């Protein structure tokens, strides 16, 4: 799952573009690999499951279904896999038309909320209550993005991708400084690296969501998780918290101090230029998703294998209310059950949830692909070169009091776009923290 998050965001715009062409696309089948034959509601004897195609996820998903079907020959699951972009369109249209598959794969958060508002997915709160054993096998922090209005509407599956602060150990040795333990340390490191012509932080500013990760952490460290929870809940004026102004000022101070590499606002994450800055030693630190590890390993030559790459959770902010164990990122992927499915189909899905999706083979499959499973007690499986990284990611994810979902995934597309737009202007110093707050209050709940 190293770069699933990437493509998801990169193609967010293009995916939506496909919507405009939906009328045309309807004329010709785009040919997803339908292995079961049931589509939509399906017959009562079998349940349908839609998910994403492509490596490394699809073989692991297919293997899970094969295991389930072998064990339950009378109640089979028929999977259909779609490319990322196609899926986003297809699933929304299918749900809207009452043709949803039994099991709906997704990212939780804002997307899940729209299904819940439309009464399209089954409330799983009671089921998890009765099946405590299943719930205990899953990292508690993964349930946040599956919960809407205090109720659980999806089962966390697959992998956890926290965002961490990566750093180049060689550059730190060269300059003779220690990794930061606090926001104050981070600011103090800026002039030290700049004096040696090294960018303190690498940032792909043109991609916008990269800038957002900074705000997510800073807000959490200064104010805790309440502020964004209020925004997510649609409370009027939720951004008008003094802590928001405080953290926006902090980030503008960092920009003014030259904390990011020269020309950061024209660097694009798709081209991995931000990653290259870190492994070439042109930048000392980089805040990025855990999938960055795979990119550093693949592109950085011997950088990772020679122990050049360091990582840590985002350090605390002095005087901040947030718990320093909190993290941000993709707390998991999610599987919901369609409320339009028959009782028999829902039972098949629940059986799938409680057996195959929490078994050891499922866990081992995702670890082998280089990801940290949402399932607990995976640590014994972390062996080989990547063991330390996997252990640390797992510990960050499992120890987090709150594993917040990326803001752009948690909010509706309209609000998310305004957010990203204002964030890029903030980093460009085109708007003041107060203007940012005013603009963002304007789209709360939209």
């Amino acid at each position, binding site marked *: 799952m190293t770069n699933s998050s990437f493509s998801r965001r990169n193609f967010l715009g293009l995916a939506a573009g496909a919507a405009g062409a*939906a009328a045309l696309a309807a004329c010709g089948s785009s040919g997803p690999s339908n292995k079961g034959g049931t589509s939509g509601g399906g017959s009562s004897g079998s349940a349908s499951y839609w998910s994403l195609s492509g490596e490394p996820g699809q073989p692991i998903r297919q293997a899970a279904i094969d295991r389930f079907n072998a064990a339950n020959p009378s109640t089979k699951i028929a999977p259909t896999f779609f490319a990322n972009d196609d899926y986003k*369109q297809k699933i929304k249209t299918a749900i809207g038309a009452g043709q949803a598959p039994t099991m709906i794969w997704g990212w939780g958060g804002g997307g899940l909320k729209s299904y819940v508002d439309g009464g399209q997915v089954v409330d799983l709160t009671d089921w998890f209550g009765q099946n405590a054993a299943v719930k205990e096998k899953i990292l508690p922090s993964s349930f946040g993005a599956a919960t809407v209005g205090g109720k659980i509407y999806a089962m966390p599956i697959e992998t956890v991708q926290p965002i961490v602060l990566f750093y180049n150990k060689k550059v730190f040795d060269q300059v003779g400084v220690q990794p930061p333990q606090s926001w104050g340390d981070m600011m103090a490191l800026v002039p030290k690296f700049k004096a040696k012509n090294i960018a303190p932080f690498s940032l792909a500013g043109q991609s916008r969501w990269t800038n957002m990760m900074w705000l997510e952490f800073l807000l959490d460290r200064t104010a805790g998780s309440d502020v964004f929870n209020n925004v997510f809940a649609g409370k009027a004026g939720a951004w008008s918290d003094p802590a928001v102004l405080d953290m926006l000022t902090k980030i503008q101070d960092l920009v003014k101090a030259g904390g990011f590499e020269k020309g950061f606002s024209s660097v694009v994450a798709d081209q991995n230029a931000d990653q290259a800055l870190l492994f070439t030693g042109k930048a000392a630190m980089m805040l990025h998703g855990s999938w960055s590890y795979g990119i550093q390993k693949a592109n950085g030559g011997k950088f990772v294998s020679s122990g050049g790459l360091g990582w840590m959770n985002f350090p605390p902010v002095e005087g901040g209310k947030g718990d320093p164990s909190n993290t941000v990122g993709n707390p998991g992927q999610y599987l919901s059950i369609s409320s339009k499915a028959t009782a028999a189909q829902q039972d098949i899905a629940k059986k799938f949830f409680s057996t195959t999706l929490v078994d050891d083979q499922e866990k081992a499959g995702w670890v082998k692909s280089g990801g940290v499973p949402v399932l607990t007690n995976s640590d014994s499986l972390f062996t080989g070169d990547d063991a330390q990284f996997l252990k640390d990611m797992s510990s960050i994810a499992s120890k987090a009091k709150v594993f917040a979902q990326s803001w752009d995934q948690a909010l509706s597309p309209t609000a998310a*776009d305004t957010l990203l737009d204002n964030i890029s202007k903030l980093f460009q110093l085109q708007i003041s923290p107060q203007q940012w707050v005013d603009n963002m209050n304007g789209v709360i709940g939209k």
Partner: protein
Amino acid sequence: MTALAPPAVRVKEPTAAGRGRSGSVAWMALPAMLMFFAFGIIPLLGVLGLSFTTWDGIGTIHFTGLTSWKAELKDPELPHSLLVTFEIMILSWLVQTPISILIGVFLAAFKRYRGFLAVLYFIPLLLSSVAISITYKALLDPNFGLGTGLGVGFLNQDWLGSSKLAIWVLVFVVSWQYVPFHSLIYQGAVRQIPVSMLEAAQIDGAGRLRQFFSITLPQIKYTIITSSTLMVVGSLTFFDLIYVLTNGGPGDSTRALALEMYRKGFMANLMGPASAIAVILVLVGLLLAQLLRRLGGRGDESQLEGA
């Protein structure tokens, strides 16, 4: 609806004697008219219709009257993106026109080495905008770009990351791509100037400069209008180039109207306001094309007066 054809020149009513012939001529226009209808007019009407609705691109389309228009006209991003569009339009016209005319005049002379140069000049025309943009983006990268590669500090500017520089870089890349095309048009125009006029001027003792300003420039007046119309209307629809180079950034410094439309429609899922922007784009384009045509005069005076 991106590339609108410049409005057709009004033709004088055919005389009674010529009516038989004009019938068959009208037939010939039919295929073009059909294409224009299917891919120009019908989508345009669709967009006009959508601008009076609320639609997230996926669910059902709700007719909501003027809601989308009101929201769009109140949005401060609309005047900003209009401003950016005009800025790019005017700057790129100012840069491209003199260079294109000079290269066109230079290439118009029948000399072998100029023919060879002409081939070189036209190479950018063979490349797609996206390929050009990606190449320039890599060359101008402040950390791994041309400046670092050649060790020339001056080239290490924050070309695309600074609000002031980014728009000039855009104008430069646009010009790099389209100057060859406009040079080609001017080359053809200059070659059509009757040699007798230039010879007469020479006999009267006019120097190169005088010939250029008194004969060449007035003679290519209509070509200048044609080329300007193409530049101005074309610059309204710049999308791919800006999208790849800056994506409208830094902040919203280079977010032209076409990018604002894309952002509204496909990023924020607001198809109604996005359609309203599309309609505004069409209106601005038509208006500008008309204006430029007026500038060209009535079009019935002879260019060969005194020849």
